[in-house]
């Protein structure tokens, strides 16, 4: 994976800059996938010097995003965060009690391993592709291929075995849990954000800012408005340049 890229001038392995490999920007969110948005939000929160490389170069695990730092490639957003925490001496969970850290882990996994599949199934099986928010229309052959692959993955996971109504219901229960726990707090655990806030934001932003035609967005607006409020708080705090990023700015470069 890294060998052919090293021939490109995109990476400077002598600098301390973290290169974040992710998909091209969406028209409504900086990334249409929750994991690059989680990782980039973390980098901003930690004030780590970074540059996004936009493309479809997959990691050694066959996925995106991944990072490169001083010649080292790290795949998987959570392993990337663990690596960066060590390298840069960062710990956004330092202010949490042991019990809060445990709850933080639980919500992280609920969002990334359950709500994520609700998002995937809704986006690829039940939504109109023109509502996805991609910068260009997806060619029909490519769309058919992705849908077929996603069906296989969702079936293997289990979410793809449920009906549309059941999937909606599962998503609603997750959103309810998040909303009830967040309550009136600014972030999940109070006035300071934690690692899990990056992930929850990465996921909810897909519903709140990108999939605005989806029933989950309507549900959040009607029944869980504190989740929408939360998304705006995270966006205003860590993405004041949101609109510039969507138009294409110096924070990213195409592969």
């Amino acid at each position, binding site marked *: 994976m890294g060998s052919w890229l090293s021939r490109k001038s995109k990476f400077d392995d002598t600098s301390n800059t973290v290169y974040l490999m992710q998909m091209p920007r969406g028209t409504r969110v900086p990334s249409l996938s929750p994991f690059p948005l989680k990782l980039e939000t973390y980098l901003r929160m930690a004030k780590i010097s970074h540059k996004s490389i936009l493309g479809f170069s997959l990691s050694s695990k066959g996925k995106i995003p991944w990072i490169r730092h001083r010649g080292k490639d790290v795949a998987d957003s959570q392993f990337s965060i663990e690596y960066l925490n060590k390298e840069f001496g960062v710990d956004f969970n330092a202010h949490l009690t042991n019990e809060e850290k445990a709850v933080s*882990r*639980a919500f992280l996994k609920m969002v990334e391993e359950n709500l994520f599949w609700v998002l995937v199934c809704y986006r690829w099986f039940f939504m109109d592709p023109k509502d996805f928010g991609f910068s260009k229309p997806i060619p029909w052959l490519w769309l058919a291929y992705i849908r077929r692959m996603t069906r296989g993955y969702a079936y293997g996971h*289990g979410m793809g075995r449920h009906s549309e109504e059941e999937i909606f219901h599962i998503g609603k229960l997750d959103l309810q849990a998040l909303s009830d726990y967040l309550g009136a707090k600014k972030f999940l655990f109070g006035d300071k954000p934690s690692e899990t806030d990056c992930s929850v934001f990465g996921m909810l932003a897909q519903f709140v800012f990108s999939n605005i035609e989806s029933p989950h967005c309507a549900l959040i607006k009607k029944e869980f408005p504190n989740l929408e409020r939360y998304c705006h708080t995270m966006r205003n705090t860590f993405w004041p340049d949101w609109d510039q990023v969507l138009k294409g700015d110096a924070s990213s470069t195409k592969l």
Partner: protein
Amino acid sequence: MHCNCGNTKLLIAAAGAVAASAFILLKFCRKKKLTFNDDSNVVYLVQLPRGKRVPSISPFPLKLETYLRVAKIPYENVFSSQFSTKGKTPWIHHRGTDLGDSQFCIEYLNKQFNVDINAHLTKEQRGVARAFLKMVEENLYWVLACARWVFGSPSRAGFPSSMNSLVLYFIQRKVKQYAYAQGMARHSAKEVFHIGKLDYQALSDFLGDKKFLFGDKPCETDCGVFGMLAQVVFNQPDSPHYEVIKKEFPNLERFCWSMREAYWPDWDQVLEKA
């Protein structure tokens, strides 16, 4: 005229072999039709046969059966390899309704029997309970599935006798495929163990000294967590997962024993019938 006797005999032999194979396959695949009494209020829980060390070698039937016991809902076990319409097990049959997926079953039964074992939780606690349930069922589950089926050869120890090596082979193939689709199998064995350890840490830190996750009364998530941890604590005593629980998270083992003693006092008798 050239005699075609040799070819005819070959044809008859081939036809016979095909017919015999079809007969054996049909006999193997055709499952005995399950019959239920739809007039009674009993819940029929359809699950795989009992294990030798745990009542079920899968966490979800154990979760569901534990819930039925906690909620004191009358039920009867039907041990069968018949899967639900979603292609999975366990599933339930109640008054003519078949329902798959352990969590949908619990939601259905809560309504039918007017039960809510989460009633004592605050709204915030319910949120946390949901999060832990999903962590355990959508993350730790895949850690354990990979540890058992993806990395190394699965041992038959503790499995029902009816699950022979051929069955294990097909299960292993499917699980590898599903675990790759879900994502866990893209990691190395060391990374998967690390992911599991972080989940155990979270469970242990949240449980602390409490008897159950949220105090002295169990909730739905306790059933889910018990179903999962019991696979390690009681069924895989030689695994590195059990070793790490014993050494670093002993309150998780204590929790398993609390659940087992409270809701499975007949644990040994249940296994002996296998």
